[in-house]
């Protein structure tokens, strides 16, 4: 067999360091980045509209809790005062909604990364922040839906808001901000954990002590001292206190600074961790 002339690979050049990122590098303006994030957030709304099973965690789960605790456990916990128990439960359940929904954020992100949709986005000329920001903004729609449904249904079974609309809006806004701060824990998990199916299992380990180790379902005074210590520290308890004041006029806003400190804490811890993991796992 005759050997055909074979082109040898080009001669190796002396090894070079990657060029430092220069100043003339083209960037995406902040306004443009916000527009892109909103375009990506629309993905969530499309899914909610056409795929009702994605509504299960938005609607069914909190309603299940509402019914279970109001009708099944209230007799035992509140000594038969079902209506009184419901009034205390709903403000706490509204805190549970965004907290529980943050689990879905991590799962969705992990799925996008695993399926390659995330790489598709990253190969487009869009802001680096847009895919994550879009995801977070899209979640606000889920928080609002979930809060609205729980408020609506609980009103039907006897919950009554005692305050003015301004206070109610403030409560809703605080809960959305609460979700937006806590979701970074979930996003971090979504980036770090390789398979979407494993994400909820791990996040539940954080969400459970936060939601059940609080004063949402039972008064802290009924618990042993060591548990009370945690419950009184728990951001979900603090948020529930704030909600009870804003929706029922019961108590005061003394828990608000603590709640805000927790939210800031979640951001300060998980946002940089997420950014680091984002760059590492995704190669930039």
């Amino acid at each position, binding site marked *: 067999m005759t050997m055909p002339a*074979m082109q040898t*690979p080009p001669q190796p050049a*002396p090894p*070079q360091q990657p060029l430092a990122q220069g100043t003339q590098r083209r960037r995406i303006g902040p306004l443009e980045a916000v527009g892109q994030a909103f375009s990506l957030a*629309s993905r969530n709304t499309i899914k909610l509209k056409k795929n009702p099973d994605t509504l299960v965690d938005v609607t069914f789960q909190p309603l299940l809790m509402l019914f279970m605790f109001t009708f099944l456990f209230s007799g035992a916990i509140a000594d038969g005062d079902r209506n009184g128990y419901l009034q205390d439960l709903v403000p706490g359940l509204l805190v549970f909604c965004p907290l529980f929904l943050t689990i879905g954020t991590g799962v969705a992100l992990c799925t*996008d990364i695993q399926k390659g949709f995330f790489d598709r*986005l990253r*190969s*487009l*000329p869009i802001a680096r922040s847009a895919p994550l920001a879009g995801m977070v903004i899209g979640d606000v729609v889920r928080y609002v839906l979930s809060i609205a449904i729980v408020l609506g249904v609980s009103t039907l079974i006897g919950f009554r808001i005692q305050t003015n609309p301004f206070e109610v809006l403030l409560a809703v806004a605080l809960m959305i901000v609460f979700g937006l701060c806590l979701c970074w824990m979930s996003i971090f998990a979504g980036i770090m954990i390789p398979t979407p199916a494993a994400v909820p299992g791990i996040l539940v380990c954080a969400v459970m002590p936060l939601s059940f180790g609080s004063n949402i379902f039972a008064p802290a005074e009924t618990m042993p001292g060591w548990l009370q210590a945690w419950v009184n520290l728990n951001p979900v308890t603090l948020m529930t206190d704030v909600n009870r004041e804003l929706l029922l006029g019961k108590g005061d806003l003394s828990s608000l600074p603590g709640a805000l400190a927790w939210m800031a804490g979640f951001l300060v811890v998980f946002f940089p961790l997420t950014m680091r993991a984002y760059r590492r796992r995704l190669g930039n």
Partner: protein
Amino acid sequence: MPLAIEAEGLVKRFKDTTALRDVHLAVPAGTVHGVLGPNGAGKTTAVRILATLLTPDAGRARVGGHDLLKDPVTVRRSIGLTGQYAALDEELSALENLALIGRLMKLSSGRARARAKELLGNFGLTDAMERPVKTYSGGMRRRADLAASLVGRPSVLYLDEPTTGLDPHSRNEVWDTVRGLVAQGVTVLLTTQYLEEADQLADRITVFNHGTVVAEGRPDELKRRAGGQTLQVRPTRREHVDTVAQILLGLTGHIPARDEDSGRLTVPLLDPMVMSALVQHLAEAGVAFDELGLRLPTMDETFLAITSPGGRRAPLEETLGGRPA
């Protein structure tokens, strides 16, 4: 001709492996360049670097004249990416996916939808475009992926194993699409495990193995280097070996090699049509055979041929016949 893709000395290390060591690529604009190699050769890593998804540990690359590291946004404006790692959102329809990408590429929402419909029409997906992508067959999905990578009218298209897992019909459709794009002046970088695919589509091929470039050249050069097909016949009865050798000599002009133990005759084959003539000749001569096979150069064989001089190993067989009735 200007170079659409030029990479020098790319190195990428992962935790305990070096995925790429000192890789060079030069792809002239408007051509198809095949990157051929087995799993784990570094093909996908190279594509991900050139698509700005990974940062190389060393080396530099320019796409469309723009430095990947200095100006990634401009590079992303001119590239399209399809393959194992760039998929669509399966919950959304193809139309919604493409329209979303259009919006992200700064089209108005009306124009994004129009562009999506036009592209999906070109790919024969008009009827399915409102269905969620998860209901698509493998071939449809790949076409939708390809369509998605074309929304921004890229001048450089990366196809990462575009036909892996597709049936032959869908594969041919993808090939036709690639040819159509090249006719429009798009530069294509295609990774594949299949010599045949690279042969069908590529103007030049770079062969990767263990993260390095082991050969580079035109497809016909590589194929000759790897060795062509060979024909193998083993008559049922030993006394027919001479007769068969005569027939093979007559048909191919080569004196067949004999394996004395098994009585198997082997001869290089350039024209696959000889197979049918051979079957006919054997039947006319009354020769029954236990084995009649056409051997294709496999990737293994290609690599052996390319990496170790003169080293050809017995390839896998594609047995085409058996004992005549």
